[in-house]
């Protein structure tokens, strides 16, 4: 079945960014609990039975400076774990085991109200009030398996805040190495957080009219091709792609040269998986896809063709390379 490969040291991950995949390796034997995976999701151990309480702090902070793929810079907002200034849009990937109690405390470092929307979590009604500038608010829920989006909730400026970078991903495991159950086991999982930037909004958030919103930059995990972090896995690995669309338009995510098996959406397992070349991830939605391919290099890209950096005639935007070795 799966081959044992050496566990390579994991790169320390920046709490403000998603883990960048280096060389991938995983160990999976029948009945064993997965020990490590070099995916871009923070490490966690879920044994499938015990639950615990996990607490996270998200500081909504403005005024980060971010360099785009064409070396222009924009101001971005983001969630940091310690109140520091963001260096990229977005926030950390939160992880939990199914059944855990998760407490997420939002600290508002903005000059305006903000709230947190934890899409797909039961018992959390839409929060249109949130926390005032300088204040904090805690959101609690019981985690269920799947891939989820969190983002700025529907306070008055919520949509702008989301477009400026207040979003992130939540990943919950039923047990290590499983997406939803034993039938959806994987050897490596990667969050693919899809987002967009309209520099005109970022330049003047207060006065920008969202009717004019027209993104020019398209990102996966905070980067545009060719700067997107690629995904490298060993042949025979079942790769789980966790798409999270934090943008405002649909993205039909396609894979060239290999198939995706679409297993779930919104953290809900389909009764049966279906194969696809490209599958639409609507705004605010998530999608889980398993890929198992022979050795080779496979471009993964937005088939809606947002694969440019501000219109330049070179491959860019919402694209990355999957390498199977």
């Amino acid at each position, binding site marked *: 079945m799966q081959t044992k490969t050496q566990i390579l040291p994991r790169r320390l991950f920046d709490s403000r960014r998603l883990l960048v995949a280096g060389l991938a390796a995983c160990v999976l034997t029948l009945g064993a609990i997965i020990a490590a995976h070099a995916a871009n999701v923070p490490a966690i151990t879920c044994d499938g039975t015990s639950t615990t309480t996990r607490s996270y702090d998200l500081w909504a902070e403005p005024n980060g400076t971010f360099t785009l793929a064409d070396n222009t810079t924009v101001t971005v907002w983001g969630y940091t774990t310690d109140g520091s200034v963001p260096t990229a849009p977005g926030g950390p990937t939160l992880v939990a085991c199914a059944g855990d109690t998760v407490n997420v405390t939002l600290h508002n470092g903005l000059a305006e109200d903000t709230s947190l929307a934890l899409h797909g979590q039961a018992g959390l009604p839409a929060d249109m009030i949130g926390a005032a500038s300088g204040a904090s608010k805690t959101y609690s829920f019981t985690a269920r398996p799947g891939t989820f989006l969190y983002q700025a909730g529907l306070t008055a400026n919520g949509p702008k805040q989301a477009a400026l970078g207040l979003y992130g991903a939540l990943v919950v495991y039923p047990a290590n190495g499983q997406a939803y159950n034993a039938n959806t086991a994987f050897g490596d999982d990667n969050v693919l957080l899809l987002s967009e930037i309209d520099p005109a909004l970022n330049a003047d958030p207060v006065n920008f009219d969202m009717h004019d919103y027209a993104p020019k930059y398209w990102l996966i995990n905070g980067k545009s091709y060719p700067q997107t972090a690629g995904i490298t896995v060993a042949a025979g690995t079942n790769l789980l792609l966790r798409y999270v669309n934090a943008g405002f338009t649909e993205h*039909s995510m396609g894979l060239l*040269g290999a198939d995706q098996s679409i297993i779930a959406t919104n953290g809900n397992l389909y009764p049966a998986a*279906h194969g*696809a*070349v490209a599958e*639409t991830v609507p705004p605010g939605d998530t999608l889980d896809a398993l890929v198992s391919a022979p050795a080779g290099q496979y471009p993964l890209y937005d088939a809606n*063709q947002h694969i440019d950096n501000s219109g330049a*005639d070179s491959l860019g935007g919402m694209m990355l390379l999957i390498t199977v070795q």
Partner: protein
Amino acid sequence: MRKTHFSRSRIFRALVMVAILLTVAPLSGAIAQTPYDFGVICENGTAPAVELTAKDGYISIPDGNTVYMWGFAFGNGDYQHPGPTLCFTEGASVSITLHNTLPESVSIIFPGQTGVTTSGGNGVPANSLAVVADPNGSVTYNFTASRAGTFLYESGTSLQKQVQMGLFGAIIVRPANCSTCVYDSTKTQFNSSVGGNNDYLMLLSEIDPDWHAAVEEAVNEFAAGGTYNPQPFSVVDYHPRYWQINGRSFPDTIAPNHASWLPTQPYGALLHILPSAQSVIHGADGFNVASGDPNTAHLADPNYYQQYPSAVRMLNVGMRNHPIHPHGNHVQIIGRDGHALLTDAIDQSYPKFDVMVGAGQAWDVLYDWTNKDYYNPDTNPVPFGVETVQGDTTDRLLDPHALNLLFKDPNFFSGSPYLGYQANKNDGAAASYNECGEYYQIWHSHALDEAANYEAGFGGMITLERIDPPGHFNCQ
């Protein structure tokens, strides 16, 4: 472009009239009958070795505009839009050689195919996903068509511009064991009787005419000895105005294949069917023919009733998702991107009345229409009369199924609610709009801004299905 203002319904009716009359062979026999040409055309037959030439040309839009295009020609034949539909048998070793006459490098990518190898060409530049053929150069792609289904082929170089300009086409892989099935299982068999195969392609695309004009200008400048500007238009300014099915905008979509007045746009999108005795569509309209149909003696006769459904292969090569709506009907989704949802072992097919065909996606559906109510003027009349004059409620058609007889609005109504019968409209207007009492129903993008030609409705991403009376396919 100047927008003209006509009475919409009048110009619309005129256009549909012209299109329908030119579509149907008249019954009188006084005019020579032309063979009716509809459905998928496999330009290569099933030959696994194909040559394509990237070249330029023009297409016409129903609003009178012409658009400069690029595209793949079959062999070194005439320019066509879209590229030739290529059909292969499952398991075939396919070889596609691309010759390039355009002023920049081009390539082809094959979403859904695995193990594509290349020979020749000139490497993979920074703006390409595949090995390119330089101007006046060639490249050959090889792969095994390992899965039945419907697939795209498109340029992988400067992809946004070259695909927008028309460098794309459809690939159909037919199961080895059944050439009239969509997938391996005979549960996916489509009708193949009178007139030909009820196997239809709906290849969806978009045109921003400003982009095409900018490229045309760049090409002309280069041809005149100037410098070639490969990016005269930025995708951030993309604003499509024309919406197409198989390279045509409505009402050209309902003209036959090889319509002589559309020499560079050979593929129509009219579904031309007979009713089916039984439906394969699960759910609301999966009915069977009601008793009382005097044609019950002919239920098993393929000249009267289709014994199998039609296959419709929806493919989207545009930048936007397109929700295709078979108005008044459902389709049965049987496959996605070459993955069957309906096999001998499983049935994960499902009905939809709106199919969101995302960018780069293929959706295979089966479709049939059953004469469920079998309205007959003598034995089973329509319960209420028909509102033939707007505002006149004395003769009001209330049966929701019969409402599907009306196309667009009560101004277009054939004159009779009975399949197979003709009648004049009660308001004394001109004779029936159909030839032999056939029905027309609309299929369209439900993003209604796309049901237009440069914002003038009706146009764009619309086609029709034409249901002929049992026993009288093509009004014979």
